[in-house]
């Protein structure tokens, strides 16, 4: 039966059909829904791990125990999991193990545009790359076959346009896999130098065998064209764009496996066409390979390595004419994403801005506090970098900034990578104040549970990590909790903690305003006769408040009644009933 499925849903279906029975992941756009869809199958045990490294190691443990296992992450998550990745390449697997990494060319929801194919090459792990939902499903299944046949983890690489595009996929039944009994084998699984030295040649031989497989596998296929003056080598969404632009004009070599790349297949293809053009997003990995094996190919000089490729650009670069759209000669204001009305981060950020603090930020919805009008963040690097960065910043002792810096980090991000940074703050004793923005969920990726919420991925109650006890346990003596809707309380706490000369943690606690379990008092409004148009309420950047004819107006469809703006109004014009 054919179904219209999101790429992520199709991939989850492929895992299910392949008999996968263990999944551990950390959410990250655009990979998150794979694990969420897979968790709906009762045959699959699925969990959110605190971070991608833990997830990958858990998945490895499960495959060692004899079950087909899986973990998913976004591209930057693979950086976190890179440590186990490079060594499980050496050990290989017992039952099959598949890793999905979702890249984000164009950075729709990411802090960089890295090309994860480099990881497959560097770690010598095979990588498959689907170009629609049908392939996401079938490649997930194929990945397990390859994993067990060649004794290796297998990476499936997607991107935003595959992960978040619905297209048709054929579903079939699940194939239950018998457990593969675990056998102790220290030569294979203990990677100390003596053993690892013997495993490295095994890895090189495996790559040779996989290259042979890639030469004849049907997932690397040649599609004939009418005009052989150009031959196109491509994969992933770029294949879709090439077909959109040229249909069957030029011959195409469509690669479903991007590591290792075939040699003979590419040489044979090149011999039959005039010029070889490689269409690939981000770095010129296939192009470089072609040139390394003596096939003259062009790619990056035409397409560049920045941003995602789109149909018109691919068509233009391949010499096709592209229709122009209508040109409206009007300056259109941008519409950046903003913190929602009622967002608990807003009040806290307002207080940080008011106190003119240097704020080392982190990854999550609260990154949005960096934009106008709050502008209350100075850095955003990666998960956990706020806490460890603050320690370094404070130890370096920049002139005039002592007692004027804080780190802000969400509850889920803190569990992911903030704890070790906090250990460093305590151990090496910097007078750092870390603010944990505890909104009781993983907000930005769409409300996933995490170790501090008290519920697991399947929604069942589970152990809830107590943030206060955790912070005290790593050696922080000053730990306090504030309500970010209460500006005065936040102001007092922040002044006291940044003012004292020892490590401290402030937990700013209030659940995400979008959580279904949160009951709001309901919209408040402005008493127009009292409003003098001073715009004090505009300083918090609430999307529900605007100035109409010199008076503040609160949008009743957006306002949830958090009353943060009420506290800013000296005229007592805000609040009360409509």
């Amino acid at each position, binding site marked *: 039966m054919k179904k219209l499925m999101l790429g992520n849903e199709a991939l989850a279906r492929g895992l299910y059909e392949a008999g996968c029975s263990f999944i551990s992941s950390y959410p990250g756009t655009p990979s998150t829904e794979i694990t969420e869809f897979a968790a709906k199958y009762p045959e699959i045990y699925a969990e959110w791990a605190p971070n991608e490294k833990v997830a990958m190691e858990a998945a490895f443990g499960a495959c060692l125990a004899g079950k087909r296992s899986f973990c998913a992450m976004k591209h930057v998550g693979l950086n976190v999991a890179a440590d186990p990745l490079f060594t499980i390449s050496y050990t290989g697997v017992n039952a099959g193990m598949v890793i999905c990494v979702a890249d984000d060319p164009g950075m729709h929801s990411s802090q960089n545009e890295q090309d994860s194919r480099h990881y497959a090459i560097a770690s010598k792990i095979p990588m498959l790359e689907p170009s629609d939902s049908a392939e996401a499903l079938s490649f997930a299944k194929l990945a397990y076959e390859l994993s067990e046949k060649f004794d290796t983890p297998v990476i499936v690489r997607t991107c935003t346009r595959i992960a978040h595009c619905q297209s048709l996929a054929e579903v079939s039944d699940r194939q239950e896999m018998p457990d593969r009994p675990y056998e102790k084998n220290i030569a294979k699984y203990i990677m100390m130098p003596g053993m690892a030295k013997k495993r490295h040649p095994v890895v090189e031989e495996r790559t040779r065998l996989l290259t042979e497989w890639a030469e004849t596998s049907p997932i690397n296929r040649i599609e004939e064209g009418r005009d052989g003056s150009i031959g196109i080598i491509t994969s992933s969404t770029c294949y879709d764009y090439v077909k959109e632009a040229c249909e069957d004009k030029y011959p195409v070599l469509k690669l479903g496996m991007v590591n290792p790349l075939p040699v003979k297949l590419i040489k044979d293809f090149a011999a039959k066409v005039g010029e070889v053009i490689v269409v690939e997003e981000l770095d010129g990995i296939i192009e470089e390979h072609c040139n390394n094996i003596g096939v003259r190919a062009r790619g990056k000089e035409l397409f560049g390595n920045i941003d995602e490729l789109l149909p018109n650009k691919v068509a233009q670069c391949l010499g096709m004419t592209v229709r122009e759209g209508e040109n409206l000669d009007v300056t259109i204001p941008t*519409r950046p994403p903003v913190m929602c009305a009622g967002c608990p981060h807003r009040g806290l950020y307002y207080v940080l801005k008011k106190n003119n603090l240097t704020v080392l930020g982190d990854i999550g919805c609260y990154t949005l506090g960096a934009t106008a009008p709050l502008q209350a963040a100075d850095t955003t690097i990666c998960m956990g970098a706020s806490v460890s960065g603050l320690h370094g910043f404070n130890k370096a002792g920049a002139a005039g900034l002592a007692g004027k810096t804080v780190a802000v980090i969400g509850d889920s991000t803190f569990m992911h990578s903030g704890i070790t940074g906090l250990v460093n703050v305590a151990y090496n004793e910097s007078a750092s104040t870390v603010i944990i923005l505890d909104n009781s969920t993983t907000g930005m990726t769409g409300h996933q549970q995490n170790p501090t919420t008290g519920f697991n991925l399947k929604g069942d109650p589970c152990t809830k990590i107590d943030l206060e006890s955790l912070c005290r346990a790593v050696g922080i003596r000053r730990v306090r909790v504030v309500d970010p809707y209460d500006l005065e309380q936040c102001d007092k706490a922040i002044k006291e903690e940044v003012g004292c000369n020892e490590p401290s943690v402030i937990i700013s606690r209030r659940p995400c305003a979008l959580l279904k379990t949160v009951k709001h008092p309901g919209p408040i409004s402005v008493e127009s006769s009292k409003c003098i148009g001073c715009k004090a309420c*505009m300083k918090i950047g609430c999307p529900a408040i605007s100035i109409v004819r010199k008076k503040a107006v609160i949008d009743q469809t957006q306002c949830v009644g958090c009353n943060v703006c009420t506290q800013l109004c000296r005229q007592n014009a805000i609040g009360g009933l409509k």
Partner: protein
Amino acid sequence: MTKNIMIVGVGGQGTLLASKLLGKLFLEKGHDVKVSEVHGMSQRGGSVVTYVRFGEKVHSPVIDKGQADIIVSFELLEAARYVDYLKHGGKLITNTQQINPMPVITGAMEYPENLLEKLQKLDIEVEGFDALSLAMQAGSVKAVNLALLGRLSRSLDFTEEQWLSAIETSVPEKFLDLNRKAFLLGRESQ
């Protein structure tokens, strides 16, 4: 021939339900379908866009500039932002509701004036109407998406029964009446 429809709006306005419904309808007709959207950060009140493509064989998951047959816009400024994605002679169906983006709220930029009139001067067909009022008339501002789909339904080759049955299978039962009402108000709107 592949048909290209774009749904644009502001994160949180319910554009995803609209694209889900369209995908379902086209699939029942036996078409190849691709529906592409971006989740995550852009949902937080940012500008959002969904691409719906159907035909005998659909390749690209996205629609590029100058390629769309129809754009359904949930907000006027977003209609203006994406209008260059329409083909010459394409159709723009837009809600006339205005939602100020943050740069306008902070006073850094201005919401352009007379946008609808300016759009109407282009070589496209423009249908502007107040979908928000229709949604409120149906019972909730949240039904704006169904009011817009109702209006769109006049430009697509499906029967009212087909639309209503797709709505039935896409929305929770307790909101069914509201959504049906909003759809029909949009379909019959002036």
